[in-house]
């Protein structure tokens, strides 16, 4: 009995150590970024480096936000990611409904195409995408970036949602049809509400992917006031001298909103994802 107790004690300690290690692993980069952004200039390059600031200062935020483009970056990112999220949720759920609740010919082929689209490297889309946007007169516009992000997120969203819609028993639709509902009503009133956690969590993923996307956003937009946050910050490193203070404040401005937003909606995300999204 005593042995078992010691064993339990040891395993608890092990778990505690593991948890602390995890917290450090996850927290360190973010904490470093946030803490650096409030260090005054003289403390940024101290040797040996210090983790905590001696004096707090908001000068980097003042400098970063004095540049009106930073505000633009932020709202561009927010607008683009929100729109991508909505479109993904709408089109994705419609497609999933279509592919799982009907048995028309070519259904499997469409699903296959969606999967194939998922494995097209974004870098391969980059240049043709730029040309299409020019042809459609969308280059440099938010619509262009949104379409670009959809090419990355939509196949994945459809694929995820198909797995949610598959789980609904066919009988539900049939019962609704018996009650006289048409296809659209079945979709809106029966299937979609049942899949809401899955649809929401897919939307959240799309939002995050869009918010973080760099490559296509960078190729498709030139105008300063149209850039997204990720592209805007990346430009700061490449200039001939690096303002670490400003960069860290911009990094914090980019990261914190998504963390906060995610914390708020996480419940639905977890609920949706664990409704059995990925299963053989």
């Amino acid at each position, binding site marked *: 009995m005593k042995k078992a107790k010691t064993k339990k004690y040891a395993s608890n300690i092990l778990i505690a150590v593991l948890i602390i290690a995890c917290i450090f692993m996850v927290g360190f980069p973010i904490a470093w970024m946030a803490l650096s952004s409030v260090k005054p*200039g003289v403390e940024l*390059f101290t*040797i040996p480096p210090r983790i905590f600031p001696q004096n707090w200062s908001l000068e980097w935020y003042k400098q970063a936000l004095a*540049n009106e483009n930073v505000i633009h970056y932020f*709202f561009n990112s*927010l*607008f683009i990611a*929100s*729109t991508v999220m*909505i479109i993904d949720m709408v089109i994705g759920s419609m497609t999933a409904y279509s592919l799982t609740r009907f048995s028309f010919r070519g259904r499997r082929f469409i699903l296959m195409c969606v999967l194939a689209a998922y494995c097209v490297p974004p870098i391969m889309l980059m*240049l043709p995408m*730029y*040309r299409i946007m*020019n042809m459609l007169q969308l*280059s440099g516009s*938010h619509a262009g970036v949104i379409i670009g992000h959809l090419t990355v997120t939509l196949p994945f969203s459809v694929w995820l949602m198909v797995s949610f819609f598959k789980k609904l028993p066919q009988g539900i639709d049939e019962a609704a049809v018996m009650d006289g509902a048409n296809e659209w009503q079945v979709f809106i009133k029966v299937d979609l509400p049942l899949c*809401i*956690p899955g649809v*929401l969590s897919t939307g959240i993923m799309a939002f995050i992917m869009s918010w973080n996307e760099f490559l296509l956003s*960078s*190729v498709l937009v*030139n*105008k*300063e006031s149209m850039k997204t946050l990720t592209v805007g910050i*990346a*430009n*700061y490193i*490449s*200039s*001939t*001298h*690096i303002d670490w203070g400003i960069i860290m404040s911009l990094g914090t401005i980019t990261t914190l909103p998504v963390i906060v937003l995610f914390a708020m*909606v996480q419940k*639905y995300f977890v609920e949706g994802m664990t409704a059995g999204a990925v299963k053989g």
Partner: protein
Amino acid sequence: MIKKWLSVMLAMILVLLLAACGSSKDEAADTENGREDVSGSYEGEKLIIWTNLTADAQYDVLNKQFAELADEMGVEVSVEKVAFNEMYEKLSTAATSGEVPDIMHTNFGGTAYLYAAKSIMPMDDIINRIGADDFSEAYKTVLTGSDGQIYGLPDWAMHTSVWYRKDIFEDNEIEIPGTWEDFLAAAEKVNTKDVSGFAVPLDGVQVAAQTLYEIMCSAGVYFMDPETGEYCFDQKKDEAVKVIEYLVSLYKNASPAGSLTWSWGDYRNALSVTGTCAMTLDMGAVIGNAQENNPDMTGKLGCFDFPGVDGKKEASFGSGYCFVASPQEGVRNTLVSDFLTALYTPERAAERALSRPMFAFPSYIPSFDLYRESDKVAEFKEEVDYIFDQFENGNWYWYGMEAGLSSMSAYIESTTIFGEALQGACDGTYSAEEAYDLINEDLMAFAASM
């Protein structure tokens, strides 16, 4: 709960959408108003201008001057920043779709690319209008295409020197080195655990090629023959391999190990802010860096030219910025010409050169006096005189443009083979000869494809 959250979110997005629509409507209205009146003046015309200058101080001055002119001429100007590491991405996507900006303020490599892509027009008329004699000859040569026309309007120039810590040299009783051997010896002598002798920055994006090229120039090895304009890097293999070997020995004996991936910001910080290196090649930006971030260091910095192999330096790596413009028709052609001409007053040219936190000097001769009177520069009179002298009287080249504009120059700047080869040579993956072969084969393949 879900419903509540969903409706809040939807409302938020609706507001955003409305806001976006609202603003785009405003823009549309603006352009409509603008198009009404074209005859007679430039009223309502719009110029799109790109610049590589992403540092705020430089960008602000350019933007201010553009805005002044836009006001005077009644045109609308939209300025877009294109960072160096994405310059060729932006230029090539723009060039292939015909979306080149009206005017671009760029370096020689960017000019060479746009020239090769046939996206810019000759500037001879504008240069003559401003005054052909007001620009330095060397500068005009480098921007001359194979058809004899000048494709860029020189703005300001830079000259690579060795920037060093005068106090460290004094403490170690070191004379300014005059040969490669002396230079290596000096770098080794001042090299300590905390302060390295000479930083050899080799970041893959542009920096590796620049570091190599300054040493190549000093030994008289070039990519293109300055006389004939033909590719000649393959002709002088032995000398080129020696250059790479020398670069590697500088790295191994006097440079911090991490400098393998250092870019401009890193080595400038090391010399002028943290004081962790005693010498580095630079175009003078270290002064601006020190003035901003570590004023105490400002007085301790000086410069001398990288020496030649046995004393006589064959040439230096010079650089600069110019304005280029895409071909325009009718009234827009005169608009671009008027706009660019108006940028060349002594005051404006000097102000632009001084906005660079490095010793850029104006290429427009009438602005020299104003430039030298500035506080920022007067403090370094000795160094400025020295650089002016070197620039006027020594050979200086920009890689690949030893005999005028060439697509090779854009390629040298954009390819990553220099990083691959030189970083590999320094960490022992390649021998100097293998590194040379990698570079040479890559450049030859490009030359063959043109």
